[in-house]
């Protein structure tokens, strides 16, 4: 009879393995701590010079000798574009999630949700390219110009000269980009609603829509809000597509004056002006400072979202990798 040789392993390596694994885990924490530290020290110059007016000011002048930096227009621009993207994206995503979890025939559910998720697989740069060369013409000729002609003189947010590279275009493309995030998490949360809830509603004679309203929405509300906030976090941090489509105004002109005016977000100003900023200059410190603000905003949004989403899904089948 052949004896089976069993490799049991040495206890020393066992200890070493445990240490190695813990080091990898600490590496993640260390990277995050280092990011915070480096962003703060890298931008200390600008905080020392501008102080709080870096947050509230709107001057942006990198010319040496007359340097002055204020990030307020970009902070506002970030929230305006992300906000408009949410206004468009969230209702659409909830509709999609409702279709995929409640209405679609069984054979269609998996392939269709995969197609929606593929929207998330398209790199940001390709959204940007498509936005500049394809989408821009459609949105300009079909939406912006008619709206501007009809309401431009009376309603301020339709005023301005529609050019296609503006806050509205950037926001719409952002909306498309966050749809897969919000809709697929919402779908999972809606699927997690116990069927007994739906059956109870059907028993009362509710239609599909009434069932959704009565049984599914109350049960999955906080999860859907979490998914939306996660989408917001993504919209806030999105760079390339926005940089290519927003029109890149600087200084006070970057304050969104209407839907059809060019703007600037925190991420797009960093991407746009970085090549011009030399090492050690105040300009670079200002850009890193904007990065720090962006980091704080995006992380705050994400932490809230993680807490909401993971609490809902934890009881169900473990948290999602979002």
């Amino acid at each position, binding site marked *: 009879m052949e004896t089976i040789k069993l490799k*049991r*392993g040495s206890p020393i390596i066992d200890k070493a*393995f445990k240490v190695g694994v813990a080091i990898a*885990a*600490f590496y*993640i924490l260390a990277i995050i701590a280092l*990011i915070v530290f*480096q962003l703060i020290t890298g931008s200390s110059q600008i905080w020392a010079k501008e102080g709080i007016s870096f947050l509230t000011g709107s001057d942006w002048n990198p010319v040496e000798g007359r340097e002055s930096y204020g990030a307020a227009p970009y902070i506002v621009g970030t929230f305006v574009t992300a906000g408009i993207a949410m206004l468009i994206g969230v209702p659409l995503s909830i509709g999609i999630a409702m279709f995929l979890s409640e209405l679609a025939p069984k054979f269609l559910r998996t392939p269709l949700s995969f*197609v929606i998720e593929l929207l998330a697989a398209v790199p940001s740069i390709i959204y940007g390219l498509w936005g500049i060369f394809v989408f821009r013409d459609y949105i300009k000729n079909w939406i912006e110009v008619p709206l501007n002609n009809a309401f431009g003189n009376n309603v301020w947010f339709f005023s301005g000269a529609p050019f296609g590279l503006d806050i509205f275009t950037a926001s719409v493309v952002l909306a498309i980009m966050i749809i897969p995030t919000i809709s697929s998490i919402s779908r999972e949360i809606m699927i997690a609603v116990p069927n007994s809830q739906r059956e109870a509603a059907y028993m009362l004679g509710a239609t599909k829509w009434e069932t959704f309203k009565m049984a599914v929405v109350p049960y999955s509300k906080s999860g859907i809000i979490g998914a939306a906030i996660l989408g917001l976090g993504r919209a806030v941090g999105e760079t390339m597509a926005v940089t290519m489509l927003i029109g890149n105004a600087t200084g006070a002109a970057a304050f969104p004056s209407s839907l059809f005016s060019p703007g600037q977000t925190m*991420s797009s100003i960093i991407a746009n002006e970085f090549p011009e900023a030399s090492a050690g200059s105040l300009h670079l410190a200002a850009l890193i400072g904007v990065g720090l603000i962006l980091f704080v905003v995006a992380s705050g949004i994400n932490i809230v979202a993680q807490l909401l989403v993971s609490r809902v899904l934890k009881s169900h089948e473990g948290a999602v990798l979002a």
Partner: protein
Amino acid sequence: MITIEQRAEFRKHFRNNISSRLIVDKIIKIIVLGCVAIAIVPLGSILLEVVRNGVPALSIDFFTQAPGAIGSDQPGGIGPAIQGTLMLIGMSSLVGVPIGVLGGIFLSEFGNNRLGHIVRFFNDVLAEFPTIVIGLFAFIMIVLTFGNFSILAGTFALSIIMLPIITRTTEEALKLVPMTYREAGHALGIKRWIVITRILLTSAKSGLITGIMLAVARIGGETAPLIFTILGSDQFFSAFDQPMDALPLRIWRLSLLPYDTATTQGWGGALVLILIVLSLNIGVRYMFLRKRNGGGRFRITAGG
């Protein structure tokens, strides 16, 4: 969730106006179907335009040559960009995969405590960091310290972006391995690290590969962090401390040029990039996620 008073109210409501309620139901169904259509149209349009505009750019030279002079008749190719993207993917994986897998092992096998919860939480937060911030960080850490833009700085940035994705998928994959496997190993007196590396990792292989492929698809499309790290270049790889080109970066540069040849090349680059990214994602889907109900826990993300 429904109280008794509510139920009585619903009953009263439901007894009446059935026809108008059915009409509302129909309208809502149509609206919801419209939502799905609105989401699919952009995807279709992107794929269509990338193929339609990208195919004319394709040629042998396009894949192998370095870019020619800007605006000239000889546009050259995007060889350095393809080389750079492949190198960046390979080098970032060399750094990111081992650390990510080890981190995942920690979370799954040793992470059922306070430290584990903290790491898990911050790992999820790191996964959602704006990638441009990670690019700035790599710029400060590597480029400013060593004094030049380099493929190493790009590798550092992209490995950080990979890390949380791989850590999380590894953890999930390992958790799917039945507890009895671990117990059987321990009953034979096998040390924990052998149980983990020989039994658990082999059982969770497909989950691990899924995570790695999704992470590779993700960093393949990353543009923002590369602006701060590898800078872009017209030359093929020469040294590890020199600037380098990458596909997404090249597409961006080409899209800013006012020449038709540049635009065509940009579309060609986009076609190559989207083929890489989508084939990875669809490959994952058909190889590993088929049995899973929608593969919900492995979420697809794209580079920013």
